[in-house]
């Protein structure tokens, strides 16, 4: 029997899931995963496309220093690519974020469901994302998590938590 055991701390998007296992069972599992990944792609296509477009728009508008009149740093191409990459790694069932430029030249994704329910994830030129939020029920959480081929579970859970609270 072939067993897939994804990391408990990371959320690997199904579209990227792979296994070195061989045999009929492995092929069947791979076919199922591809089918699910294609369905996931359909679900996310619309809001990911929208958010990637907003990232490009924000990057264009903030491509120079002092874009806000308060000495904000320009958003670089590397930051733009990283932010788009991060969006592509998010699970399909998450709500759509808004895209906000940050004065340090980062791109922030914000999920805001009203007073006491707001989460922001900030992405810059590295593959580390700083995050902070009030997740409902007075729960506060902040930290830094790396991302490259997957997203830390704490980030995905925080997005679900802030969307769910109320």
């Amino acid at each position, binding site marked *: 029997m072939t067993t897939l055991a994804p990391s408990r701390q990371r959320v690997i998007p199904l579209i990227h899931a792979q296994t070195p296992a061989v045999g009929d069972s492995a092929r069947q599992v791979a076919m199922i995963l591809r089918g699910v990944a294609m369905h996931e792609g359909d679900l996310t296509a619309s809001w990911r496309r929208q958010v990637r477009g907003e990232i490009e728009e924000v990057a264009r508008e903030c491509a120079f220093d*002092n874009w806000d*009149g308060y000495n904000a740093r320009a958003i670089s191409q590397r930051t733009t690519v990283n932010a788009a990459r991060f969006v592509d790694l998010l699970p399909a069932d998450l709500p759509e974020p808004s895209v*906000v430029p940050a*004065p*340090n030249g980062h791109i922030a994704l914000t999920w*805001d469901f009203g007073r006491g329910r707001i989460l922001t994830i900030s992405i810059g030129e590295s593959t580390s994302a700083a995050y902070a939020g*009030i997740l409902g029920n007075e729960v506060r959480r*902040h*930290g830094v998590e790396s991302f490259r081929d997957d997203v830390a579970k704490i980030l995905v859970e925080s997005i679900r938590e802030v969307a769910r609270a109320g």
Partner: protein
Amino acid sequence: MTRFLTSRKYFAATTGRVKPPALLPRWHADHARLETSTHRSTGLTTAQAWQLGYQYVENAEFNRRISARGICLASAVRAAGLTLDVNGEPYPRHADVIQWPQEEDAQLMRATEIANSMTLDIDPRQ
């Protein structure tokens, strides 16, 4: 306390919310510290508060055009673990939010606390 917002991306007009990055600090070389520029608006009418912004904050030469303002009590700054330096410089009623931590996530948490407590007022010229 009023934070004049110079980018439309810093707020959501439909929900009346200020986005946390709008409160994040910048490094002020002369003061050698991280700070966020605000204004004391207690005791001012809405029109007077806007006039303050038009006269002292808006500046075409600095690419600074006001779109809205976030309003909160000064106590919200203290509740976020920060300090308000009421200095009245370089213009009247000016105050800097200071004593920010160095770490980005810690800064973002404090900015979130303040933004979460704010009400939004859109520039009446819009």
